[in-house]
């Protein structure tokens, strides 16, 4: 093995994405690692610094709400790619499309006849009790017929190498801008490596997204006006909102740029109002329309939901999708796939205890030291207890919280997330760090398309399982290998 990876040791009891348990490169990545590993550590450190400088000067940043000192941070980027074999990807692609299709059917059902409750597939009280279930939307069919135009499904890989779904994001999944920017940075720094490796491209995502959004227009057609709706520059994902608008060549707007008249949405321009057909909204639905949701919202567009209900504007994603993101709904997704599609789920999940169920709750409160507890309606690593690492006081606090509001919590055994070699600036060598993967799925009436890549997030702190950007995580370029001819 070459100098860069010469002493690399995968962590015991975990699956490493690039090396086997005997510290040998996996067969499908050997050629890439030979080329990448040929650099001396000092050269690689220089390349890594170059990539970080590029991210800084290009302003590829995100904001951390919990950080009161500053608003912007560069998303740490590790140059060693995570590589997914073609066969693994083919399986994921099918499984992701299947999952998104089932979630779409589930949302249609929940906001119409609610057959799934009558047929006993999922408890009604669990769904109707979800904070993100919006009863006022029942009976409204979304213009264009699609509810989940853009999905981000979080995957992890367990100790035997099986990909498992960790959670679903069908409201406003973020991160895809880093996928495209990470690839650009890697290509600039290792141009020759790319010439030799047969890797799927990811830079066409914005074009695919634009096509997906135009296809969703109530009237359809290439002439549809699409806009990206952002809460503004102080939002944590503002860079991404701006990036996507720029890459699609559409307007980035704030709520004050839009108004509704006779149930139609218009964009204010200096040359007068311009009708809007599709809004890729990156605002929470609570802030979409003060007439329907939060009346105190300064971010909303009064009358927007009337226009949506009248079928004059498409909102991507559809309001109300949050009920499918609820972590207490997640354990039922395989049943929902079987119910709506008549198929077994292709993707595995993580075994989950739903604290609303008495037996599950009793088990959870007795086994907090070995479980990961999550609030059903939070994300970004917030509202979470890592039982094995928590103190007794922290576990006691969560026990009280669970007993006080069981609907709000689920628990899962801690999965030994897979690792990937990651450059450690302190030790100047490659070390294993835990990773997850968020692929992106775009859906039209014609079906789903999965971006061959995705956001690999990496826990940069040794031993950490938390990959969230808000809590010290970074990212990697994800290489999906092409089938050999």
């Amino acid at each position, binding site marked *: 093995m070459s100098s860069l990876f010469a002493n690399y040791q995968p962590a015991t009891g975990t699956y490493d994405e690039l090396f086997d348990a005997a510290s040998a490169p996996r067969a499908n990545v050997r050629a890439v690692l030979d080329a990448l590993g040929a650099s001396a550590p000092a050269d690689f450190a220089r390349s890594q610094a170059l990539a970080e400088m590029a991210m800084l*000067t290009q302003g590829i940043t995100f904001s951390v709400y919990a950080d009161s000192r500053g608003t912007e941070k560069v998303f740490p980027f590790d140059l060693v790619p995570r590589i997914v074999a073609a066969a693994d990807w083919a399986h994921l692609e099918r499984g992701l499309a299947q999952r998104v299709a089932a979630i779409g059917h589930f949302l249609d059902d929940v906001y119409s006849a609610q057959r799934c409750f009558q047929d006993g597939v999922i408890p009604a009280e669990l769904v109707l009790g979800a904070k993100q279930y919006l009863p006022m939307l029942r009976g409204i069919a979304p213009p264009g017929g699609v509810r989940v135009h853009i999905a981000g499904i979080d995957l992890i890989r367990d100790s035997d190498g099986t990909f498992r779904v960790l959670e679903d994001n069908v409201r406003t999944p973020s991160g895809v801008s880093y996928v495209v920017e990470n690839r650009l940075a890697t290509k600039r720094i290792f141009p020759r490596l790319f010439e030799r490796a047969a890797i799927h491209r990811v830079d066409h995502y914005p074009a695919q997204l634009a096509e997906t959004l135009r296809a969703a227009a109530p009237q359809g057609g290439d002439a549809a006006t699409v806009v990206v709706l952002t809460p503004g520059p102080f939002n944590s994902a503002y860079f991404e909102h701006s990036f996507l608008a720029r890459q699609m060549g559409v307007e980035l707007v704030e709520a004050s740029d839009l108004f509704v008249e006779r149930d139609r949405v218009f964009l204010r321009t200096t040359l007068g109002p311009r009708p809007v057909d599709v809004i890729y909204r990156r605002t929470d639905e609570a802030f979409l329309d003060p007439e329907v949701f939060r009346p105190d919202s300064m971010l909303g567009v009064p009358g927007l939901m009337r226009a949506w209900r009248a079928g004059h504007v498409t909102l991507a994603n559809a309001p109300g999708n949050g009920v499918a993101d609820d972590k207490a709904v997640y354990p039922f997704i395989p049943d929902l796939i079987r119910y709506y599609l008549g198929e077994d789920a292709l993707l595995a999940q993580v075994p989950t205890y739903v604290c609303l169920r008495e037996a599950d709750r009793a088990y959870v409160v007795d086994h907090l030291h070995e479980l990961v507890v999550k609030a059903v309606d939070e994300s970004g690593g917030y509202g979470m207890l890592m039982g094995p690492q928590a103190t007794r006081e922290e576990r006691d606090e969560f026990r009280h919280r669970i007993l006080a509001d069981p609907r709000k919590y689920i628990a899962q055994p801690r999965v030994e997330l897979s690792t990937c070699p990651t450059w450690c600036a302190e030790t100047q060598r490659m070390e294993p760090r835990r990773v997850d993967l968020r692929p992106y799925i775009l859906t039209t009436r014609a079906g789903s398309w999965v971006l061959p890549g995705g956001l690999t997030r990496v826990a940069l702190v040794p031993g950490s399982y938390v990959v969230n950007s808000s809590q010290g995580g970074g990212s990697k370029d994800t290489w999906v290998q092409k089938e050999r001819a």
Partner: protein
Amino acid sequence: MVIVSGEEAAFAARHGDGGEDVGHLVEQHLTWETSNLSSIRRTVTAARENARSIREVISLEVWEAINELYLWLGSDDAHDAYITTRYAFYKRIRSGVRLVAGLLRSTMLHEAPLNFIWLGMLLERGGQTARVLDVHHHVLTERERTHEVAEAALWLAVLRACSGMEPFLKRRHGAITGDAVTAFLLFDVAFPQSVIYCVREARRRFAVIRPPGEPDLPGFATMTRLSMLDGWITSSAPTRAAANVHAYCTHVVQELQAICAGLGAELFGYAPVVVAESPQ
């Protein structure tokens, strides 16, 4: 310089008269002082924040040039340059700003967003020329007269502050007088920093953004006000302006402030706070 930037009271409150160290303190105040809204540090930070919030409107090249200037200004390298080679420090900032202006022109569609950017630059530039002229004209005409060579040097310094020395010398073939410099900075239609050029060009750009004959489109009141200012300047005889430069410049500065506030209110739904100020 402190008066031109509207910082007289703030500077006096912080430093008194500055004593022997006044030059150093003025530079410090105008370069680094974060409580000074018009210090270089604050304006570059604000420009970068504005650019970030319209990142999808400007080109990648423009964004990178602004961001790099911002990052450099916050770096140890910039602070070292300020201490050791001040000329190089300011030159780099000037070059950075001109790079941005050039990239705007060469990498963006010449449509409404670019016209908005030029409109803002022209309104600010016209006001700044009027301020510089007003303050210096007052100082230079009130002081005891000195040798004409020394007088010429002082007027050349005014021209340099407006990047107008060489254009003026070309125009006047080296004949430097206070009246000539005043007329040049106010009325030379070919000089891009002159008040008349800035106002006229601002009006033209604004007319492209929103046609002037459309009272129902947003910005009609501001368009009318800008047209009136343009007409007023165009019809002014240089002799009338020269008779009372202070009153003339004050009118220009106040009108431009009102036009900027009108743009904010009519097109962006807010009005920037206008601090009443006398340029002198």
